[in-house]
């Protein structure tokens, strides 16, 4: 059965698009049929990070408004056969997307894919609530930094209040993905530790992505990091996250600051 996953954060610039591209590619590399959907109408970037910016003809808005068929707007990745992109519109504004239109597109995507990954825009406005509206589970991307943690807390509140799943009285499945983590600074006491962020947000940990220059290099190249530098520490962390989402039971690897990992089990679950 298809899973609709929203990648969200509240705050901008914490790594939602990077994470969407990396998780999408990693899941597809494991043979899953994946579509990554950009909900950032007017400020699209997932196409650029995926390296498909010159191939966008139709976008989510066209399909949601019923002007073109879904298959006309889906862009197949040139590197992984089972990975597809549905871009956002760069020229329209956020009101171009109706809730009914999005619902219909998501329903149609569910029928053809194992994973529908919705890349949320920053903020808590319409675009962000639409991206999470029909999700089955959420990945909350957070930096170990006060403003990011606060905004993630707000987004967690919205996930529990403004989604279809919440409206049905069900519990939204939420996972913490900590990005730009620097174990050396955390060890010195100058960066929030993983445990601090987990305690404050009270959601289970999916992955810790270490601060790394490989992330910028991958986006420069227009390639998800799991493809651009599969051996790098961030790529390995994203790959593990993808496996965990697929139901593989493995402990979360924690960066040790020497481009390696210290495997450590974070068994604590959400309160």
């Amino acid at each position, binding site marked *: 059965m298809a899973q609709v996953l929203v990648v969200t954060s509240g705050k901008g610039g914490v790594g939602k698009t990077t994470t969407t591209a990396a998780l999408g590619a990693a899941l597809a590399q494991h043979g899953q049929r994946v579509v990554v959907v950009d909900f950032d109408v007017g400020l699209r970037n997932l196409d650029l990070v995926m390296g498909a910016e010159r191939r966008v003809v139709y976008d989510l808005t066209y399909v949601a408004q019923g002007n073109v068929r879904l298959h006309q707007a889906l862009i197949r990745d040139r590197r992984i056969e089972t990975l597809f992109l549905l871009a956002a519109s760069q020229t329209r504004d956020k009101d171009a997307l109706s809730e009914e239109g999005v619902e219909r597109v998501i329903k149609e995507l569910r029928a053809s894919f194992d994973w529908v990954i919705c890349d949320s825009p920053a903020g808590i406005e319409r675009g962000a609530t639409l991206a999470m509206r029909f999700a089955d589970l959420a990945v909350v991307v957070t930096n170990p930094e*006060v403003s990011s*943690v*606060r905004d993630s*807390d*707000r987004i967690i*509140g919205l996930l*529990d*209040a403004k989604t279809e799943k919440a409206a049905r009285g069900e519990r939204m499945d939420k996972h913490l993905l900590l990005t730009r983590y620097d174990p050396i600074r*955390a060890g*010195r*006491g*100058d*960066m*929030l*530790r993983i445990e*601090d962020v987990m*305690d*404050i947000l009270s959601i289970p940990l999916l992955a810790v992505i270490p601060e790394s220059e490989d992330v910028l290099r991958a986006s420069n190249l227009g390639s998800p990091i799991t493809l651009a530098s599969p051996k790098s520490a961030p790529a390995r962390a994203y790959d593990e996250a993808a496996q965990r989402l697929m139901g593989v039971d493995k402990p979360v690897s924690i960066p040790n600051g020497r481009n390696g990992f210290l495997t450590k089990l974070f068994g604590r679950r959400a309160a």
Partner: protein
Amino acid sequence: MSWLSLFSRRKSASVARERLQILLTHERVATSQSDLIPTLREEILAVVAKHVAVDPERVEVKIDRGKAVSLLEIDIEIPATAGAKIFSALPQATKGASGRLQEMAAKPA
């Protein structure tokens, strides 16, 4: 940073942690109520206004959260003319035009 100041100054991460914990405790309560009070206010006012002329500005809805019970307090000020009409219709007039309802605590998540 000097070698000594490492010991004299608190680590910034623990300050961050404490600030967030205090802030978010307040914000979680505030945001979980933010929809409820305006909704209650609007709907209660609509019901009352069907029967009595009331000034929408003179309505106050408050929730006091307690451990076992929370108090939902609704104060609706009724103009003298409309008030006279109500009290003559009631078998036993209450002193003021304010009503108090108690509701079980709907605990924020």
